[in-house]
């Protein structure tokens, strides 16, 4: 098999709030021999107020990046961020579906876009192109005994006609990857429930309720950690865990990982590359417990 290689769109949160997601994604892909070619001079995906007021503008923001990727000669763009994914995919699908729309978008662009590349999440290609088996082969530090719940969030698989990946109600891609890394994945019934992110600023009380429910259920199932694939979800569950605790009078101390971090860990990547120090809830007790519980059992 030839080496897997894709155009790569990091997205803005990877430069800030979810730096560790970005770091760990790159480290993981390198370790898995997947070539991520960063789109030169990439710009905002349009996951701003743009898409709420002007579809053409929003598509042009995404379209510029797709055009740049096409110029690289790549036919598939990856991004770790579900929001970027939604916008890039939406723009691509809309333009492929309507020449008229494409023309409107092209008017806004310096370089009109021609061929429209595919857009996928890093998770999708890990699951589909490489496969859990491919991950398992490279695991050197299995996550034995680590009980996790996988939390996909609301937009990674939705709407299904746009995302064309995994089940929108009961996704399993992250589950399989975590299992491949040796973790025990608990049957989490709230995989795609809303964490409240979209109301994060205006209605904090909702976030407390919704994220709290997720943490409660994870705790109840006996999870050692939550695994996510979305910067916003991760932020709500991790950064706001303290707030949730005080609002709901709970005392959760659940580390909330990006799946890339845990996979990287299992592949034996150095901590520095995984950005574990960026997590708010200390992950180390959970990570240290790996292997031990099993020995005890």
């Amino acid at each position, binding site marked *: 098999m030839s080496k897997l290689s894709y155009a790569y769109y990091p997205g803005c949160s990877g430069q800030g709030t979810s730096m560790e997601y970005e770091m760990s994604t790159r480290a993981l892909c390198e370790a898995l021999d997947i070539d991520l070619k960063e789109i030169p001079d990439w710009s905002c995906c349009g996951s701003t107020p743009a898409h709420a007021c002007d579809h053409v503008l929003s598509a042009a923001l995404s379209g510029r990046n797709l055009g740049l990727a096409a110029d690289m000669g790549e036919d598939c763009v990856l991004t770790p961020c579900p929001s970027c994914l939604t916008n890039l995919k939406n723009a691509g699908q809309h333009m492929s579906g309507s020449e008229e729309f494409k023309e409107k978008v092209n008017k806004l662009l310096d370089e009109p876009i021609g061929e429209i590349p595919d857009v996928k999440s890093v998770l999708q290609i890990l699951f589909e192109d490489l496969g859990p088996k491919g991950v398992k082969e490279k695991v050197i530090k299995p996550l034995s005994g680590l009980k996790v719940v996988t939390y996909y969030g609301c937009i990674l698989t939705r709407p299904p006609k746009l995302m064309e990946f995994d*089940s*929108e*109600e*009961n996704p399993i891609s992250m589950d399989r990857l975590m299992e491949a890394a040796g973790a025990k994945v608990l*049957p989490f*019934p*709230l995989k795609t*429930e809303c964490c409240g992110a979209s109301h994060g600023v205006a209605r904090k009380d909702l976030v407390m309720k919704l994220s709290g429910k997720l943490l409660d*259920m994870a705790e*109840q*199932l006996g999870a050692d950690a939550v695994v996510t694939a979305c910067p916003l979800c991760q932020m709500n569950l991790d950064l706001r865990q303290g707030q949730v605790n005080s609002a709901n009078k709970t005392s959760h101390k659940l580390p909330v990982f990006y799946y890339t971090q845990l996979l990287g860990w299992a592949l034996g990547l150095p901590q520095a590359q995984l950005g574990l120090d960026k997590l708010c809830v200390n992950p180390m007790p959970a990570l240290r417990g790996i292997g031990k519980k099993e020995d005890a059992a």
Partner: protein
Amino acid sequence: MKIGVFVCHCGSNIEGTVDTKTVAEASLDFPEVTFATDTMYACSEPGQDGIIEAIEEHKLDGVVVASCTPRMHEPTFRKTLERAGLNPYMFEMANIREHVSWIGKDREANTNKAADLVRIAVEKLRRNQPLTPKEFDINRRVLVIGGGVAGIQAALDCAEAGLEVVMVERESTIGGKMAKLDKTFPTVDCSSCILGPRMVEIAQHPNITLYAYSEVESVSGYVGNFEVQVKKKATYVDWAKCTGCGECVEKCPSRKAPDPFNELLAPGRAINIPFPQAIPKKAYIQAEHCIKLTKDKCGNCAKVCPSDAINFEAKDEIITEEVGGIIAATGYDLFDWTVYEEYGGGRYPDVVTSLQYERMLSASGPTGGHVKRPSDGKEPKKVVFIQCVGSRDKSVGRPYCSGFCCMYTAKQAILTKDHIPDSESYVFYMDIRAPGKLYDEFTRRAMEEYGAQYIRGRVGMVYPDGEGQLVVRGADTLMGTQVEVKADLVVLAVGAEAAKNSPQLAEKLRISYDAYGFFMEGHPKLKPVETNTAGVYLAGACQGAKDIPASVGQGSAAAAKVIGLFSKEKLKSDPQTALVDIKRCIGCGKCAETCPFGAINMTEFRGQPKAEVLETVCQGCGLCAATCPQGAVQLKHFTDNQILAEVEALCRF
């Protein structure tokens, strides 16, 4: 030839968007048309009389009616011609309603197109020959496929009328879905008490031959003379000897076999008798679960059988039956609801189907009629019913309403209260559809007398709360809020879909089926139990979801159709068959090779090989005519020259 053209207004159905007078005037210019008129309703009595008068007055010898589809009224007008003393086949129709007036509003274009259609009908008619049907004998036996309540009704009605009936049932017992039900709505009477005696009658009726655990393998022939191959699947039990005592079932050590009769609610034995009232009450072995058949060990059943009926060597058997008519009554199956991941996709044991719940309620079911949660065997106190699971849902490809779920949900809510008086029932519904006699009253009783809480809205999610209960979250569209109900048991009112392998059976029967696999009736209103294939009729839910009274009604209707068919002395074949011009035939045999009906024989004429059509076997498809390179085989009324004339007429201007 003198051709009369009658252009029908069909009230305003045609006249509304077609200028029928102009069409009639234009028709008068067509070759050999000597009379043309527009008429209000050609098919009405005055309309038909008008045609007859015109035939007599103008000495017409051919008629074109421009009106609706020939699939509807061609037989009507042929009879009109016959009454006027003409050969009924000197007739053609131009479909200016379904194909013109109803599909566009451009009056000019429609009028123009209508005239074109009349023109091709005239050109075809000019080349028609008077035809006379051939008569042939009827085999007065009927095949009923499926032994559910519709099939049972049809079989008994036919048998009572003196016909010999062959019934083929896929499962080891007849009774179908109704046999699995505990009670029936809206009377709440015991399902097996009303169905049981009818099943016994099937077994005992001297005119009925029952093949249970059997399937239709192939069907050939044509109305009046079908030949049917029935595959009797191996049961490994000699049913002639089996007394149904059940000793073998008791002693069978293979206890993880599926029990389809109980909807897989509990495991069954490899050797099994579905239920105490089974007809025939005989044991059968599920080979893939039998220790003897898979591993050549055990053989307990053979050891304990008092009548020595077990035969591990048994093989499938093919039986040929000859019948004159066929009633398909293959019923329905439940939609595979596990595509609903939001309801757990089958991962939560306490989410069950309505039919599973029915088995739980039934005294003959695996719980002996006690409602118990599959997960822990506890009696549920809060039961949530979710309606329209696999009905009225485009996203799962089932946009239709299954019709009976509203009613059985109400029934199950009532029975829940009867079984567990301190229980609460919640029903999530979209609309209540209860249009039958006493139906709406029944659903009201569920709400008002039995206190079932009806919540109008779809359920978005069911998930375990981690503490042994299920959270059911849905919308309450009347309140405009989201609601969450904690439930001990969730019952899904799963919709009906066509029985599995329906399309395959339809193909064997050469009948049509719709996009969902339900069999197509001859006409949605006027021929609800007929099909497009003469001699094949439909009864029950195989045609579309139906409740018990409707299925029984259709069973009787189908039986009446067969009895009517068989009441004729002889049947007449459609004379629009193929014909060989032996002067032109070179005897290459390509027609005989491709004929789907074996209706072409190769014979010899003056030492030369020639093809010959068996007129009563020929079904008139015309494949031979399209196959013969020199055009020596022609299909009467669809000859090359007729089709060429139609093409030519359409292209001439």
